């Protein structure tokens, strides 16, 4: 028994949190939406009311689909959309999708609601009554085999690839073995790993698609002139994108790769999945993911209940909607930022614990967080969120060979 009591949603999926999200639909509505969320600070509902949003005024199918997936994520219990009124985002489509999912939904249009103060008050009033309503939502026992877990690394250094990422990979092996669906991503940080990764695919056809996804990332980043590599990676001892990639790759563990998904595609069953985060077609809209939270959001859109975040330099971020477990690869960083870190994988560097022991700790923490334990970033109030412009072609049937 996992001990997890999930929030049962109409589509049969279960959530590990019951969050009310306030989503602004253009930057012009951001402040008002943020003020609504702010009203619940220092109340018993702090943390349960969270801010997400999309800043752009131009329409984008990817952003529309992501917003629908995020607002119908099993960790979400209700949605308040905040619109300025004249932006291009299709707020009716978004609200209809949330309504069809059985969740309470409300759209406030600032231009029609009387302005800033009136909209903030109307939003806060709706949230107060809706929180009471969703607290009564049905609960159901939830198994580890119903969990979807993402993994990301950020602020990597030369320790990430020898402690934190292998430990996360070990946790993934344990979780996949228990039937969970695990997602790894950032094809731009798998450059140099495409051949060894393709060999792990469950079919040769899928293997070729995995290879092509990395080749696409290589072309995309070459056009932009930078690899997926920050200056701090070099300070931390990483010299090239392929060195960073090899370290990042090991967080996928040793399980066979069951499928290739794109942001918003939900894994059809347990197993290990690669998420292709690099847009299709010609280079448009700039860098695929401008910072770590964009990747976390994409895994959440694919149903991730929580994310494993491995860091060497020391990231402090969390996320809206799904908790983030922070695994610190570097023992010096762990000591410097202990208040932000959930797991000290630096023990492996110092010879105090094995990769298998830290991997087991991560697996056990995943189950505890799913059962309600707060992560460090949740306790601290971190709820970062980014959604930007992209464009994707849908995946083909060869991407999910076992789904039929």
């Amino acid at each position, binding site marked *: 028994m996992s001990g997890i009591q999930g929030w049962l949603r109409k589509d049969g999926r279960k959530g590990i949190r019951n969050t009310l999200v306030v989503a602004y639909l253009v930057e012009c509505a951001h402040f008002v939406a943020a003020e609504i969320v702010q009203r619940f600070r220092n109340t018993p509902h702090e943390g349960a009311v969270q801010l997400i949003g999309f800043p752009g005024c131009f329409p984008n199918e990817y952003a529309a689909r992501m917003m629908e997936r995020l607002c119908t994520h099993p960790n979400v219990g209700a949605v308040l959309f905040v619109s300025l009124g004249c932006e291009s985002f299709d707020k009716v489509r978004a609200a209809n999708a949330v309504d069809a999912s059985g969740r309470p939904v409300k759209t406030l249009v600032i231009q029609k609601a009387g302005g800033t103060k009136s909209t903030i008050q109307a939003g806060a009033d709706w949230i107060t009554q809706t929180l009471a309503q969703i607290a009564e939502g049905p609960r159901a026992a939830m198994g580890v085999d119903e969990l979807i877990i993402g993994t990301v690394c950020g602020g990597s250094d030369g320790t990430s690839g020898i402690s934190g990422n292998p430990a996360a990979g070990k946790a993934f092996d344990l979780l996949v073995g228990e039937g969970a669906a695990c997602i790894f991503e950032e094809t731009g940080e798998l*450059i*140099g790993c495409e051949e060894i990764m393709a060999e792990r695919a469950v079919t040769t056809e899928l293997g070729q698609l995995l290879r092509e996804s990395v080749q696409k990332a290589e072309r995309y980043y*070459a056009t932009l002139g930078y690899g997926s590599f920050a200056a701090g990676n070099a300070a931390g*001892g990483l010299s*090239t994108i*392929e*060195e960073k990639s*090899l*370290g990042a790759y090991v967080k996928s563990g040793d399980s066979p790769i069951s499928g290739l998904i794109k942001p918003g595609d939900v894994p059809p069953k347990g197993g290990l999945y690669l998420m292709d985060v690099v847009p299709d077609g010609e280079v448009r809209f700039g860098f695929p993911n401008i910072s770590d939270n964009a990747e976390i959001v994409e895994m959440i859109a694919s149903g991730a209940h929580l994310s494993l975040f491995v860091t060497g330099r020391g990231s402090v971020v969390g996320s809206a909607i799904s908790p983030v477990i922070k695994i610190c690869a570097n023992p010096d960083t762990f000591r410097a930022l202990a208040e932000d870190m959930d797991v000290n994988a630096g023990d492996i560097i*110092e010879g105090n614990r094995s990769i298998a022991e830290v991997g087991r700790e991560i697996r056990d923490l995943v189950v505890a967080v799913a059962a309600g334990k707060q992560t460090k970033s949740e306790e601290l109030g971190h709820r970062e969120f980014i959604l930007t412009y992209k464009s994707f072609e849908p995946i083909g049937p060869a991407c999910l060979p076992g789904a039929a």
Partner: protein
Amino acid sequence: MTGPFLLLSDKDNVLVARANAPEGLEVTLEGGPVRLLRPIPMAHKIARHAIAAGETIRKYGMPIGIATADIAAGDHVHVHNIRSAYTATHALQDADGISAGVSL
């Protein structure tokens, strides 16, 4: 294990520091003892043996770049003497792992 340095794969021509290693530290490599010419921060790399310009650098048994200069055994192997076979590395003043990366 060679002092504070790890060999991750027999195929590698670099070793990785598992702790900060001070300048002047004597490290015994296969070709004999060398003294570190500069401090090597945790997770940075040194050459396991002499590497010629143009040679492939291997870590985890896999290629991680190409030497842009001759590198002596025990020398720091990093952005100043290797390059990516894919996209160029972006680094700031603190890439040596020692500078603070702030001007004041």
